[in-house]
């Protein structure tokens, strides 16, 4: 790709990204907005690829466009067809105040974009700081994995990832407090059912592959977790009641597994005299893989539960007892 055609490709890509972003926000119908947003996510994934960020491209496609889109569509689905007046696209106050407000906000946003651009132009004109990437490539060998992004995520800045898993756990606990899951979907027709019969095993296989390959190539726990979640979502859409989610205590265990194992490893290392989350070089690879597996399960369970939109309808006998106990206080 000679530079000129690369420039044309870049221009086209960016135009479509900005165009899709603008379109998804400009429409009045929420469904069109969400679908355009998903398209925006996918094209953005291409842009990540163009900027040599494959890990992020995978995550964007799977989580950013895929699952966020699925969540938004599920929510948009519950909106009654004729949108109630107050939630139409055009802002509430149409009068003079509305116009002034819109102009003021637009002005504010352009000013914000201007300052950002001005600061970034200044940054790009000076030589980029390579102090941190240099240190990473120097310490990559000691990190137990060869993919630098996974090394940063799970070794150098492991503490960030631990807290990020806690964020996921908080989100799903918050969703649980808000009530029961949405009603399920009607059973799928033969074609969709056939597709599901093939698609789900493939999704599970790719999830396993992505988990394993993350150590030395783009991939890792988040992308694998998203794949697994996709399998669960597809089963849910096909109207299946059992979508592979454990129940009761096991479900809570899986949800807590990601953060729990991470914390357990960190604390045992601390007890053994090493710094918190400071994996010994010999064990780093296996430890990271162990943590990533637990993280994958937790992420998958969390994202599926988010798609369900609430506490899953317990089906088993024990669950019935559990539900009955729920109602009587002091149980």
């Amino acid at each position, binding site marked *: 790709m000679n530079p000129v055609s690369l420039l044309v490709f870049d221009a086209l890509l960016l135009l479509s990204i900005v165009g899709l972003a603008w379109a998804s926000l400009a429409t009045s119908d929420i469904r069109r907005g969400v679908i355009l947003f998903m398209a925006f996510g996918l094209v953005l994934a291409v842009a990540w690829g163009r900027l040599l960020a494959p890990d992020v491209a995978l995550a964007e496609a799977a989580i950013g466009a895929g699952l966020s889109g699925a969540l938004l569509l599920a929510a948009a689905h519950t909106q009654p067809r004729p949108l109630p007046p107050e939630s139409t696209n055009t802002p509430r106050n149409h009068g003079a105040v509305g116009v002034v407000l819109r102009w003021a906000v637009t002005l504010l946003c352009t000013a914000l974009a201007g300052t*950002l651009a001005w600061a970034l132009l200044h940054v790009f004109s000076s030589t980029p700081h390579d102090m941190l990437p240099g240190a990473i490539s120097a*310490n990559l060998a000691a990190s137990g994995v060869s993919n630098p992004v996974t090394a940063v995520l799970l070794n*150098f800045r492991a503490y960030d990832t631990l807290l990020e898993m806690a964020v996921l756990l908080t989100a799903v*606990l918050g969703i649980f*407090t808000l009530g029961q899951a949405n009603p399920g979907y009607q059973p799928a027709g033969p074609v969709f059912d056939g597709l599901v019969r093939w698609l789900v095993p493939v999704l599970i296989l790719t999830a396993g592959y992505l988990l394993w390959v993350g150590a030395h190539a783009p991939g890792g726990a988040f992308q694998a977790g998203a794949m697994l979640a996709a399998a669960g979502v597809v089963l849910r859409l096909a109207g299946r009641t059992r979508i592979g989610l454990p129940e009761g205590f096991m479900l809570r265990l899986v949800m807590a597994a990601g953060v729990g194992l991470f*914390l357990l490893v960190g604390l045992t290392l601390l007890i053994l005299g090493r710094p918190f989350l*400071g994996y010994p070089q010999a064990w780093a690879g296996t430890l990271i893989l162990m943590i990533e597996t637990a993280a994958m399960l937790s992420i998958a369970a969390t994202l599926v539960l988010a798609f369900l939109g609430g506490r899953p309808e317990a089906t088993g006998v024990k669950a019935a007892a559990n539900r009955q106990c729920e109602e009587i206080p002091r149980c």
Partner: protein
Amino acid sequence: MTDAMIGLVALPLAGALATLLLPRSATAVAIGTGLATTVAAGLLLFGVATQGALHYEIGGWSAGLGIALRADGLSALLLMMTALVVLAASVYASAYFSTVSERARFWPLWLLLWTSLNALFLSGDLFNLYVTLELLGLSAVALASLGGKRAAVAAALRYLLVGLLGSMMFLAGVGLIYAGYGTLDLATLARVVEPGPVAWPALAMMTAGLLLKTALFPLHFWLPPAHASAPAPVSAVLSALVVKAAFYLVLRLWLDVFANVVTPAAANLLGVLGAGAVLWGSWRALQAERLKLLAAYSTVAQLGYLFLFFPLLLALPPGPTRDLAAGGLVMLVLTHGFAKAGLFLAIGIIQQRCGHDTIRELDGTAQRLPATTFAIALAGVALIGLPPSGAFLGKWQLLAGAVETGQWLWLVVTAIGSLLAAAYIFRVIGHAFGHRPYPNQPVTVAREEWPALLLAAMAALVLGLAGAPVWKLLEIGT
């Protein structure tokens, strides 16, 4: 002593997981974790007092590469306050929530909130601050919507959207800083950053995001409904700690990391917004119909006082007077934390026992719950800034700083604000002198009233009389 730092994050996180896995004995596990974390906070405070600022590199990687945890005087004090307030509110919550399912859902989120607060006060890395802010926002929203009533859910949703907007602005600022200086560690950044086209926009973006989260005056609209409709222990922690965390970050960025980037003009802008918050918050609190709304607007006003310190601290040259003013600021932060938590817990008792918290019909209730009324009075004394309370010392330093630097506007605003605060507090206490006969047993619900009383007493008496060590601790900079 550095293990105490890890303990402060790991213990509540482990507690959260334990309460999630064992819903039946969630309360016992939670209170146990709470005690352990408070001990850890005490150890840290002792460590910082004896050995000076503590520093811990997670994973053993040097600060540039990995994430560093830092604890200086200021963060150690805030951690200790957080521990005491959350522990007291936990004891209160164990009696406040009646059914097992409510408690099973409450405790994990509660301990996750505590984890995020401790992680935020300890963090020495910009992106890590973003993640802790996000964890704090989400757990606070989840807790605020715990009641499940329409008002609570609507307020929680608006709070979440505002929080997300704030976090995105903060992340944009972090991105700019990383682009410009190639490092995310606060200590190295403080050495490297210099005024320029990268530092100003980045600081502006980060500050805008944080002001949204700390509900400073023009951006405070989301706070009153969210804090007023949340369950009592949650609104206590929201008002006393969660908004303070964002303020702590503004303080850390402006006075510590970006010290030479910040201009007095920008500080004056913060001061003016703070003054607006003081007057507007107090005025709305005076007209509030419900006790919880009054307490929420009083939070908006009290935050205004904290921002009044910025123009003073920047105008004063580094030296003893500036340390005194900084000490006054911390004293106000701590006293408001304890007082507001005590006030909300007391209001929670009134709301639970009498079914309503409208101020006009308080006559009978204030008589049947004398200990609660006494807690409200003590908390009120601390909120107004009357002598035995720590806020009196804080306001004294604020007035002294205003006189020293000749910025008389802040002096006038503080005076008016304090009188308005006296008006809306004594409007409530005035109702305590109704006609009902005096009940024989002053404390009716021990497990709920003692936390409220102890918190309010901490603000109104202990901090006021035993506040001197705060200034000594603050000299231990990062």
